[in-house]
């Protein structure tokens, strides 16, 4: 009897020791994994919808709601925002690029609608202005509200990226392959990323045809506009091209790439999507065939160039724009 009790006790001790050893290994492995994902966790806490932060501007508007998981089948709308985030702007940025994107995971169809930065609209603040000022006045919340109200669409999420963030993420992915439509030349391209005087110019030239673009070359391609028959419209088309090229790259990205991508983006990226939602977006983006991407740019007659108070603006023809937008996007509730 005594021997049996001793045997039981020693069995329990062995089990406890075993549990301790297993727990020790688990803690060690989890620590290793957490340390690996530390840069992504930092970005998640600082720049994504893991916590609710407002970005830029001073207006405190309604928080952007983000459901926890991207549905594998339900379509969603993402507002992509890009800013000249160099030292000229001292932390308050205009959006040089606004692309309203609808992703339908079930049909694997994507629609990209570029909203011209000079579009003259009623801003979320109640005053009229160019749509690129919405972000300046009230951050992403204001940009979303302005787009929702003026285009009468519902926006589920947003993602914002700065100049250096775009350069870094493209470099981190090893560059992108693009068929440049024509020679893109600009003798007055802003020399604002070199660390010198941000108001200086530089000459740039992107040669036409299929080629491998580094982050810097891709930025020049999407940002140049002075020697272009279609100015900002052409730039919008080129921005969509780079997004399509990035989509091709997402096929090769795994969860293990998230920390290095997060590190490369640094503070030049903000979104209300969680890390889980972002990583869920990657396989969806990678599975969309090129032929299933619809590209929309609001050229005349949707917009008309005018000078208003000494500045060049694009006056919207809402009677044409809203029906066109309604073809592709879910109406605001």
């Amino acid at each position, binding site marked *: 009897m005594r021997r049996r009790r001793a045997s039981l006790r020693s069995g329990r001790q062995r089990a406890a020791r075993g549990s301790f050893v297993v727990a020790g290994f688990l803690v060690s492995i989890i620590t290793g994994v957490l340390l690996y994902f530390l840069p992504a966790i930092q970005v998640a806490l600082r720049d994504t919808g893991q916590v609710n932060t407002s970005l830029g501007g001073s207006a405190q508007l309604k928080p952007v709601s983000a459901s926890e998981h991207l549905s594998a089948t339900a379509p969603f709308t993402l507002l992509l925002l890009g800013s000249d985030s160099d030292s000229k702007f001292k932390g308050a940025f205009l959006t040089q690029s606004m692309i309203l994107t609808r992703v339908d995971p079930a049909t694997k169809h994507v629609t990209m609608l570029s909203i011209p930065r000079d579009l003259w609209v009623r801003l979320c603040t109640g005053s009229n202005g160019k749509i690129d000022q919405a972000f300046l006045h009230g951050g992403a919340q204001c940009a979303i509200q302005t787009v929702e109200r003026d285009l009468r669409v519902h926006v589920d999420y947003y993602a914002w990226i700065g100049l250096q963030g775009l350069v870094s993420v493209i470099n981190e992915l090893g560059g992108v392959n693009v068929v440049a439509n024509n020679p893109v030349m600009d003798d007055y391209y802003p020399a604002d990323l070199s660390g010198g005087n941000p108001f200086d110019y530089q000459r740039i030239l992107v040669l036409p045809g299929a080629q*491998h673009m580094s982050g810097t070359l891709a930025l020049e391609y999407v940002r140049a506009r002075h020697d272009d028959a279609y100015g900002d419209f052409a730039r919008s088309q080129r921005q969509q091209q780079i997004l399509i090229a990035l989509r091709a790259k997402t096929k090769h990205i795994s969860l293990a790439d998230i920390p290095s991508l997060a590190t490369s983006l640094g503070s030049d990226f903000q979104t209300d999507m969680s890390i889980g939602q972002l990583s869920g977006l990657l396989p969806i983006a990678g599975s969309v065939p090129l032929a299933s991407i619809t590209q929309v740019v609001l050229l005349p007659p949707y917009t008309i160039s005018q000078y208003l108070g000494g500045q060049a603006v694009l006056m919207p023809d809402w009677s044409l724009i809203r029906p066109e937008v309604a073809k592709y996007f879910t109406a605001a509730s």
Partner: protein
Amino acid sequence: MRRIAILIALMVASGLVANRALAVLQSHPTAAALVSSTSPQVRLPGTIYVSQEGAIYAISGSEVRRLALPSGGDWTQPRVLADGSLLVVRRFDAYSDLYHVSTAGRVLSRMTSDDPATSNQTLQLDHWVLWPAISPDGTAVFFATDAPKPAPKQSYEVDFSLWSAPLSAAFTIGGSGVNGGTRWSVPDLYTGGDIEPMPLPNGSLLYSSYANTGKGTVVTVIGLQTNPNSAMRALTTPQQDCGAPSVAPDGVTLAMVCTNSGQTANLEVATLEGNALGTPRVVVANCLCNAPSWSPTGDNLLYMNAADTNGNFGLWYIAHAGGTHPGAARRVTDSSVDLDATSAATWSSR
């Protein structure tokens, strides 16, 4: 005690292994290999010059060597002259110049000085010179340059025009044009202009011409001019969106890249019939192709293509591409090599 220490060490090691295992799973793009560190997959006769990361490499059979060109700037778009020497573009951030160099890479002459900004501090006075092409009789060089252009701060206009100049005489590129040269084309403004000149044996000039459709797009057509003062005749339609022409030494077989305004391209071959173009034949469909060029004999076609999963632009080759039964496309360079796809290879029989 010793067993506990070993156990703790194993636990720490397991954490490290988990951490490093994730790092291994990263799809980090590997840096492209230099073409000189690899062996060509296909051994072709003569010497083929290509550009990679700002250097010029000569591929001769199974050998690859780097030309010992001066450092600074990016050397690109080599063209072989009849004596085997080369014309090469040296591109800097704000301008480019044309150089005549030996097959070893020794500079024989600097043909242009397109950086007046160094002395007058006005960046917009700089010029680009690109896409040099030698006339079939070897007496003239054709090229694209952003001259003439308006004075600085007068306009944003900067577009390529096509010019020719005697190979034997000096010429200078300035704001009003090429002193000592002949202007061939007047660009459609704010489109990029006219590029990639291809002088033909009959004295005509073939090139890529960018045009504003007036409907929100800029497209390219293959244009033909019979002399510097003639009007351009479009040989392809704006819908085809064809560029990068290369004419075989026979003067009539044309290779070109047509995108149909899309994000992939077709490599096509057609025959010039007088001042018109025969029906094009697609030799490579749905590719990321660029910069075709012919062999000295005119029966083999080289081109750049990113056909590998890693997305690297390699040099590809099709035997008898101008015939009715072209060979299969074969990659010449190793798949780890990423060449400058905007720089056509040039093939010397030497």
